């Protein structure tokens, strides 16, 4: 049975909710509503003349092959970041969980990058990989690799993926470590007694029992890759070369802020909003059912 707390006063619950609601309205619904309103308009940058153009901004978007390309870029980027950061951090968590001596030191070092701001991470990696002065570039050149992400789109993509994954690993690592520690030792010991090797124990016991954590991290990482990698991209490739790393969020910023195309940028935000709502709904309705709790 659920325990319900009821308020005797009629207005108190609303008063308690009000601050949170006010924040949601002011910082979410109000700008979102404005984006929808602007997406139907054609405005000059200074807001001196405004025309209502119905769906023209949306039609222009769906006629633009670069918009579709940005979708593809976002998909490649987000899934690479989510998959890589989950796999690597799971590996690290399993390793760290088995370490007996200096465990705290390892854990601290692994968690460290989480404290680094996204833009700082971007600058750090772009320095190491800078086409003419980077240390890594120097090594790569010595190995005969022509490293120049200023011109080569796939290398630029690789760079932002690496920087974003590096930034997200500590977060995932923490959750996996906590997940691993909550798996009952008796289960693993029982399997060991039954003759299951370490690999078998990992795949048959640890992985299924970690699936709620993994699912949660998948959602969080995708959202992270979608929205929070802005700093990394802005500090390194700025969406280039030739839009090779221009993910949807960056395109919204670029078209709206840099190019002052407010209508087109708002239309993109509206589409992005619809995508995120749909994605979240799908994830929770369908994928979550298959997760083993």
């Amino acid at each position, binding site marked *: 049975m659920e325990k319900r707390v009821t308020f005797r006063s009629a207005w108190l619950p609303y008063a308690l909710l009000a601050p949170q609601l006010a924040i949601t309205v002011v910082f979410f619904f109000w700008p979102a509503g404005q984006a929808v309103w602007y997406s139907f308009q*054609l*405005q*000059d*940058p*200074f*807001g*001196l*003349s405004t*025309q209502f153009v119905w769906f023209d901004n949306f039609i*222009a978007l769906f006629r633009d092959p670069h918009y579709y390309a940005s979708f593809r870029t976002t998909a490649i980027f987000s899934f690479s970041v989510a998959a890589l950061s989950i796999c690597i951090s799971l590996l690290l968590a399993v390793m760290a969980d088995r370490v007996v001596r200096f465990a705290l030191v390892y854990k601290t070092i692994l968690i460290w990058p989480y404290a680094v701001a996204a833009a700082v991470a971007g600058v750090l990696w772009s320095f190491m990989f800078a*086409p*003419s002065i980077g240390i890594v570039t120097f090594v790569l050149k010595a190995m005969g690799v022509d490293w*120049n992400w*200023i*011109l*080569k*789109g796939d290398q630029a993509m690789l760079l932002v993926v690496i920087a974003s994954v590096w930034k997200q690993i500590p977060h995932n690592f923490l959750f996996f470590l906590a997940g691993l520690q909550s798996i009952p030792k008796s289960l693993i010991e029982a399997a060991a007694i039954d003759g299951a090797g370490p690999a078998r124990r990992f795949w048959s016991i640890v992985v299924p029992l970690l699936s709620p954590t993994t699912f949660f991290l998948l959602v969080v990482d995708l959202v992270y890759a979608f929205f929070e990698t802005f700093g990394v991209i802005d500090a390194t490739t700025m969406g*280039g*070369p*030739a*839009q090779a790393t221009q993910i949807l969020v960056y395109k919204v910023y670029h078209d709206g*802020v*840099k*190019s*002052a*195309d407010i209508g087109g940028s708002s239309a993109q935000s509206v589409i992005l909003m619809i995508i995120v709502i749909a994605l979240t709904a799908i994830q929770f309705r369908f994928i979550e059912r298959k997760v083993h709790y």
Partner: protein
Amino acid sequence: MRIKILAATVAVAAAFAAPAQAQTEIQWWHSMGGALGEAVNGLASKFNESQKEYKVTAIYKGQYPESMTAAIAAYRAKNPPHILQVFEVGTATMMAAKGAIIPISKVMADAKESFDPKDYLPTVTGYYSDLKGNMLSFPFNSSTALFYIDRNKFKAAGLPPVPPKTWKELIATAEKLKAAGQDCVYTSGWPSWVHIENFSAWHNVPIGTKQNGMGGFDTEFKINSPLHVRHVGMLGDMVKKGLFTYAGRTNQADSKFQSGECAMATISAGALAGAIKAGKTDWELSFLPYHDDVKGAPQNSIIGGASLWVMAGRKPVEYKGVAKFLSFLSKPEIQMGWHTSTGYVPITKAAYELTRSSGFYDKNPGRDTAVKQLTLHTPTENSKGLRFGNFVQGREVIEEEMEAVFAGKKDAQTAMNDAVKRGNEILRKFQAANK
């Protein structure tokens, strides 16, 4: 304790408020970082010392696109700066924003300050005036693209340290340098500005219809002409052969050349400021290379850099101060100081004469190359400048297509056709938004 803090706060607030009340403050938003930023602050404090009525506050607002965005947002929030430094590609956008800006000619006339556009170099006036000859913004830091060579690299390769004059000669030299083991032979900054905009003016071919957009918003790009395609294709071939090291869309090439990585470069005349600081003297500045089979080449190059726009929406009294400050800036000795300390070109004829008669060019050979290149011939319709709406986006499209050629993903003809097609879409959108 609390009273003490309160008292301290009041005292501090009073200390800040007192001078602000006595003088009218004029805000100047700019994008000059580093050594250039110091020079800008120097100009403001010099003006502030020269009189007591007004106080110019120079504020660095980030790079050109950022400060322009900030000013647009400030205008929408009804609190714009008085003076805003806008880069040349933002000119058409600012110009179309009637009501948000006040033409310089009007600011000066209203304040009864003397101002004659004829004092300025024709390439400068043309870029910032409307078709009737009214100057809309105040030219401030103007540069142009120049060709730099590092004499030491030439000597090391056993070549005479003479800059090649044509693209044919440049390629021949590049091949020799490469053969002698020079890794980065030639690099270039600002691909669209150097290889499309200045290139077109230099060869006297149009960038767009309607006098490069100066004649109206219904302009179209013309940069898929056989000459443009040939030039971009040639650059693509040079990348393939390792004769051209692409550095990026802005001034990344400056450091590649200044650090001694590359032997030749087409970069901004403004890059010289960094060179003076680095103490490198064995560079030679010369005119941009040209294709010698093109009739009428070389014509003259066009300017880059930025101008100062006066924004509307402040009190009339304050504009008097703005006008005073702008006439202070146009004094020949101030112009000369700016020119000699930064590498930007002297934009008034008087400042150029003053610098020449001071013997500065004799002591610093090559420092007048930019002016000479800008004024090589009387500007034609193709070489006066350009004015395309939303050219921040337009330039990006051109650069993306050029990068596609450099990366070997597209041939030059397809890329330039695509640049024209995509660029024209941007122009039509601008036209629709500014009816």
